[in-house]
């Protein structure tokens, strides 16, 4: 069959005269298909007209459409009259969205299945075969088009007049760059402006050490945190408790006596001697892996777990990563208690806070 291209053999050999009054409409349809190289080889009504089966199918389809009408009306009624405003508890408003979904879903499925049943069961089954007509296009056409394009290139004569080509390129390249420049240039923002990647809100201002405050801005006394407790603290500056200081949230932990002892020893070893105050240690809450708040503090094992990628840090070993993908210790904030008895940061973090990056020293 693939060898037969072009006009397909039809009964009679010649294309039909579509104006022949003896032809039925289907004959013309079939002739049209033939002209598109389609042979309708099988065309069979699934239900004979007027039979019981047909009436049953018609009823089914009609049933689907009526169901749609019903469901859609219900949707409108619910949409308009059902109590929908939020009330605490398990009131009727909690049913609003589900009811809308069910009615809308049933309405749409009704049309869908109605139309599908119509098309699938009531329309005649057919098998048609269409030629693909693909594969290599005629070599002649390829040749003609190729020659035409080569001819156009010749006419432009860039080969003979190289200056034109060079100068055009020299002109167009900058124009292309001009198109990109405002976008790129506008987006560029120096990541190291004000040393923002290395500093947090705990940088002392005007020689004043920054207090550690709670989420409501109150400063913190050592007595506020029980042993085995932890609290999220923020720099006590304006907007310190906001996303403007997204790298500053810190976990202040009150270690138990023995753990604190061990912690101090390990801090010394890491060059962080004196960073703790009493049994209190403060570590950045921003994970050094991907920046999530690593704040699942296990007070007995002294592990700090990050819920995003399960890095685990051992607080008593200067927040060393002991499991998971994190490779760097959580930075430690050096703290002390000021004259009024509130926690302050002795200085800013002594290393970059947050996820790692290329030029982190």
């Amino acid at each position, binding site marked *: 069959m693939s060898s037969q291209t072009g006009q397909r053999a039809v009964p009679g050999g010649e294309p039909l005269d579509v104006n022949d009054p003896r032809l039925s409409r289907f004959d013309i349809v079939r002739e049209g298909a033939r002209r598109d190289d389609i042979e309708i080889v099988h065309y069979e009504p*699934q239900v004979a007209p007027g039979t019981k089966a047909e009436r049953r199918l018609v009823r089914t389809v009609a049933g689907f459409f009526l169901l749609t009408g019903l469901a859609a009306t219900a949707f409108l009624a619910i949409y308009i009259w059902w109590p929908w405003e*939020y009330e*605490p*508890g*398990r*009131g009727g*408003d*909690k049913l*609003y*969205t*589900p009811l809308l*979904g069910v009615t809308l879903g049933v309405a749409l499925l009704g049309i869908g299945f109605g139309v*599908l049943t119509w098309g*699938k*069961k009531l329309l005649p*089954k057919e098998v048609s075969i269409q030629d693909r007509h693909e594969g290599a296009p005629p070599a002649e056409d390829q040749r003609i088009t190729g020659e035409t394009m080569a001819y156009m290139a010749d006419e432009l004569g860039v080969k003979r007049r190289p200056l034109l080509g060079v100068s055009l390129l020299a002109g167009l390249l900058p124009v292309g760059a001009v198109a990109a420049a405002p976008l790129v240039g506008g987006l560029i923002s120096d990541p190291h402006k004000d040393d923002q990647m290395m500093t947090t809100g705990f940088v002392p201002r005007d020689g004043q050490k920054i207090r550690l405050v709670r*989420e409501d801005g109150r400063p913190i*006394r050592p*007595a*506020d*945190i*029980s*042993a*085995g*407790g*932890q*609290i*999220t603290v923020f720099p006590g500056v304006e907007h310190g408790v906001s996303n403007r200081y997204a790298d500053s949230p810190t976990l202040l932990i009150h270690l138990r006596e023995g753990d604190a002892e061990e912690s101090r020893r390990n801090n010394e070893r890491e060059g962080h001697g004196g960073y703790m105050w009493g049994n209190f240690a403060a570590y950045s809450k921003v994970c050094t892996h991907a920046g999530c*708040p690593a*704040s*699942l*503090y*296990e*007070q*007995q*094992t002294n*592990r700090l*777990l990050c*819920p995003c990628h*399960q890095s*685990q840090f051992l607080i008593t070993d200067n927040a060393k990563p002991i*499991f998971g993908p994190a490779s760097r210790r959580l930075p430690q904030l050096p703290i002390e208690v000021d004259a009024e008895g509130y926690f302050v940061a002795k200085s800013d973090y002594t290393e970059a806070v947050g996820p790692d990056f290329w030029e982190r020293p």
Partner: protein
Amino acid sequence: MTSDNDRRRGLLARLRGRPGAPSRGRRRLGAAVRLVAALMLAGGAYTVLAPGAAAQENPPLSTAAADGKALFDVSCVTCHGRNAQGVEGRGPSLIGVGAASVEFQVSTGRMPMARQEAQAARKPEVFTRDEIDQLAAYIQELGGGPVVPAGDNLHADGNVAIGGELYRINCSQCHAFSGGGGALSSGKYAPSLAPATDRQIYAAMLSGPQNMPVFGDNQITPEQKADIIAYIQQTLKDDGDPGGFFNLGRYGPSTEGVAIFLVGIVALVFASLWIAGKS
């Protein structure tokens, strides 16, 4: 002898948690308790009547605490040691943990523990409310510590909006936004808050059970604790899910992903099987 046997059987029944047993076990334990109390009284009388026989270091226990001590000596002493001083490798000292800790551990059924494991799990509780109070009184009188305020409804005047903010800062990292709990390192976990009562949540915050950090009254004031409990009980638990009949366990995207394949894709593949199927 009989009393010994009784006591042991009653205890075993409790540890096994046989469903039919409680009434009988409790009766037996009651008997045992009475007996021990009687012995205690006798002992107490003896110490009082025999001056100089024992040094008077601890103040005498109240009646409730004495009952609690009796219970302790039956159910807890194996792991926590005589006078709740702890047994190396089995159970910590309970001196100073306070009534709050007892209330949390015993009322959630975590204690007495069925076996040593990474973390004690919530089980049906073994002791009655009165017995828990007695145990709590005993531990409280031993070494002091935090106490849960009286009453069953501790969130009556809580503010859910403030509670929500505090919950998200202090609790959600382990117990999840929805209160469903989450995994911790090496098999430990933060439990679901669904079965927790007001008193248990309050006690947990005060005492920091297992690996939970302690949230003392200086850090989170009693009013704030009421706010948090109000948020958990009213918003997380009582408030329905407005978005559907099924909340997919509120586990977030993981169950949503399962749902789109098991419900959406499966339903539509069946639909396409029907559509393209031979009629």
